[in-house]
């Protein structure tokens, strides 16, 4: 009696499945159009107006680049769009009707997807688990249908040519692959507009090209792309339109077909910007830092630094270029005494410092600007004065072994604040009250004001405003001109190329190239960074 019903049900079920798969096969990615508009968005935080009456629009089928320097309000604006922040004024319109997003869930269901600058991936989960989080396929009783999840991941990644293994654990994956996971996450939720926040910060030039082709695939599939960046070259390359934000306000728009980098940079900062660093040619002296056959093995047994050797002379700037994750961090940790090496030798000014502690290295004449100023460089809960003596408090000038000589420290602090353009009203205030750029200046002041022979600078201008970047670059060049040896490790290729007298490229723990930045193109360096080599013909400067 009920068999026919079962049979009907079964048939309906099958037809439905067939139809939907046919649909997705034929409509391989051409989604309905959508126009998104942000009107009059204002967002205030205590002490600062992050977005001030901002207007912006994006439609499917185009790439909009949103440029501005660090702190201009780009990320805030996108977070408002994504429902993470609530705008104080203004509205969001989709296809000309106002919408309200109270949480990312709303934005997601409206068709907005976001790939954040710092990946939102749970390191201990697999790719599949990360991708389906929030839209998990389930069996009875809420049990996770992990097989379905795996299948979905494979489907989407195949459709867009983003090769992914659903069972790989995210923390084991290299950065470029993690980005693909983020993209699949977004596509799985039927995003129509995809926002990328500083997506190329962690990619090699060739990976960036790959990334651009993904963007083009998305456009061809009918999506819209917003591309937040502070890298003007890239904006000019990929965007159909460019909007510039400065200090929370819209500073202008540009047409990538006609605008120049200099023009956009001026809109970003409000004045003419030095895009290159002015420096005289270097006059290298004796070797100050001598690294020989250095190898570092991580707890899993892998060689993260693989038998490298190099020299840094007095009066020269050596830059180490490379994509994050190729051993640079470990190299810096080893050179600064925080990590034990497995083999090799390090000599500083003739003295063997292979097994020296950070303290010994400081007293032997090494200054260190660490990669992460808030986590490694400063104690933000302490005053500016205390931070300014953080690496020299044990010096006889500031301590007699038991007691600290605070009056002297305060005196020196006042001097340093004045000499190094640290914008603060009172050095007794906590370091947390300073902006990123000024915090970095504190570290620079602290290290460069000492009697040092070598400066080890890791990511010295990451995440700070243009004015501070210029200032710090100036200081580094000044230091070099006074005879100090400088070793810069940075993933920001422009910075390395602009500042260095010699460039070393690190790839998978090895130094794969030693180049003269004046004689080689960005693209070629990029190829080395990706582990390949430029062909004979591609030697010209771009």
């Amino acid at each position, binding site marked *: 009696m009920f068999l026919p019903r079962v049979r009907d049900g079964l048939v309906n079920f099958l037809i439905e499945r067939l139809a939907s798969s046919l649909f997705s096969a034929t409509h391989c990615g051409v989604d309905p159009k959508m126009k998104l508009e942000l009107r009059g968005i204002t967002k205030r935080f205590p002490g600062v107006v992050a977005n001030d009456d901002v207007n912006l629009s994006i439609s499917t089928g185009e790439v909009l680049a949103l440029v501005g320097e660090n702190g201009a309000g780009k990320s805030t604006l996108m977070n408002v769009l994504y429902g993470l922040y609530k705008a104080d004024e203004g509205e969001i319109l989709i296809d000309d009707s106002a919408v309200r997003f109270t949480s990312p869930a709303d934005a997601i269901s409206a068709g907005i997807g976001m790939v954040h600058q710092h990946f939102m991936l749970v390191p201990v989960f697999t790719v599949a688990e990360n991708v389906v989080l929030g839209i998990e396929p389930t069996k009875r009783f809420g*049990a*996770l249908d992990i097989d379905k999840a795996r299948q979905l991941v494979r489907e989407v990644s195949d459709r867009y040519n983003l090769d992914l293994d659903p069972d790989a654990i995210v923390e084991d994956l290299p950065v470029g692959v993690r980005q693909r996971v983020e993209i699949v996450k977004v596509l799985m939720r039927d995003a129509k507009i995809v926002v990328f926040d500083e997506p190329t910060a962690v990619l090699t030039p060739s990976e960036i090209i790959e990334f651009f082709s993904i963007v083009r695939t998305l456009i061809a599939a009918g999506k819209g792309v917003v591309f937040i960046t502070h890298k003007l070259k890239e904006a000019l390359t990929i965007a159909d339109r460019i909007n510039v934000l400065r200090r929370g306000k819209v500073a202008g728009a540009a047409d990538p077909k006609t605008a120049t980098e200099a023009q956009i940079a001026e809109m970003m900062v409000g004045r003419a910007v030095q895009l290159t660093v002015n420096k005289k040619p270097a006059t290298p002296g004796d070797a100050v830092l001598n690294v020989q056959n250095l190898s570092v093995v991580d*707890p899993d047994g892998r060689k993260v630094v693989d038998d490298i050797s190099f020299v840094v002379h007095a009066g020269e700037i050596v830059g180490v270029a490379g994509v994050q994750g190729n051993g640079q961090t470990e190299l810096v940790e080893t050179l600064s005494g925080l990590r034990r090496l497995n083999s090799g030798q390090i000599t500083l000014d003739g003295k063997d410092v292979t097994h020296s502690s950070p303290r010994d290295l400081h007293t032997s004449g090494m200054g260190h600007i660490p990669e992460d100023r808030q986590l490694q460089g400063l104690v933000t809960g302490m005053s500016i004065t205390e931070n300014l003596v953080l690496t020299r408090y044990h010096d006889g000038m500031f301590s007699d072994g038991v007691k600290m000589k605070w009056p002297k420290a305060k005196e020196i602090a006042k001097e340093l604040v004045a000499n190094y353009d640290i914008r603060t009203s009172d050095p007794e205030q906590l370091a947390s009250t300073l902006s990123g750029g000024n915090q970095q200046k504190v570290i620079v002041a602290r290290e460069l004001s000492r009697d040092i022979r070598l400066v080890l600078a890791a990511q010295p201008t990451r995440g700070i405003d243009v004015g501070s970047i210029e200032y710090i670059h100036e200081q580094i060049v000044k230091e070099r001109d006074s005879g100090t040896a400088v070793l810069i490790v940075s993933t920001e290729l422009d910075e390395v190329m602009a500042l260095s007298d010699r460039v070393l490229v690190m790839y998978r*723990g090895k130094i794969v190239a030693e180049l003269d930045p004046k004689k080689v193109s960005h693209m070629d360096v990029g190829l080395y960074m990706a582990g390949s080599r430029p062909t004979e013909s591609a030697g010209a400067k771009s």
Partner: protein
Amino acid sequence: MNTELLVSAEQKKHARNVGFGYLGLAVITLAVFSRRPGDAGFKLTEGGTSLTLPAQQFAWIFGIVFVALAAAQLLRGFGKLSSVVLSLATAVFVLSFLSWATAGESFSLVGMLQDTVSRSVPITLGALGGILCERSGVINIAIEGMLLAGAFTGAVGASLTNLWLGTIIAMLTGVFLAWILAVFSIKYRVDQVIVGFAINFFALGITSFLSFRVLVPNPDYNSLVPVMPISVPLLSKIPFIGQIFFVQTIFVYFSFAAVAFLTWAMYRTRWGLRTRAAGEYPKAAGTLGVDVIKLRYRNLMIAGAVAGIGGAWWPIGTVGRFDQNITGGRGFIALAAVIFGRWHPVGAFSGAMVFALAEAVRLKIGNFDTGIPSEFLLMAPYLVTLVVVAGFVGASRAPKAAGQPYDEQ
């Protein structure tokens, strides 16, 4: 990349410590346990079947076995069987300890182990509550307070109404305290540890206060007949094991079920995935539309409910009354069990068993005439935990986001 994957330094150190551990067991067994002649009689069932072990010979044999284990561990390691070997070794060690202690006399092993399982209930349930919270990203120091408050309200509730209602009241008390923890730590961003400790103080103070002020003059508010053990049909007939695990009160069965359920839920359901995400990297979940705040609130309250029921074990499951500070720090032992079990329900359960065993043994210590001052034997579980935490757990894998308030805006 050079992927010559050797065993990490961490694992090597861990394995070496286990090897030394076996060596230590060997030394103790040979040096101490082998010294008493006589047979140890263990009563295995209520009926009177007993196991007689020649204590000295037993000790010699197992001392040698431990040396062998130590050598094997230090030289080769046991690979996947490591945990199994470790558990078996521990069981054997305990047996040899007990033989030594009761040599020449008779001892109800069954009774003691039954007692162990029963005593593990509040610690297990407290630990499960702790795991629920920590896995969601909130540190719960207030387990002690929840247990204590649950014990109090459970006692009064059951005295005034009936056992079921009393348990429910205890559960709701736990939920209430968990709600306070949630509101202060999630909404007002007060340091989770401060709130936890404040709740503990509060619970201790108010229950002692009320105990003195209300219960003493009104003893009928504080007397009830606790539940009786129930024999699970079939399973309780299994020799030895049956008596120990399947002739217990409903609280025990509930704790077994809770461990099993939580394990399944945490690792196999959608809820579990989101919970773990909230504990490891809440922003990942938040940016995908998961309401981390609501999830934490809910999980905390479930944890409170479980802990509340754990608290009810004292009046309703065993003694039939409430006494001041009846929990005596078990909430912190539960916390230790969480860490001991590496934030996994089954691990925490085994940790709870270890502590419960120590408690049960402590009672019988009086019957042992061992020549070692009883205080040192009483100290043993704490020393053992110290050694285990230092040597084997160390700075283990806590949920990364535990302790940090979730930043939404």
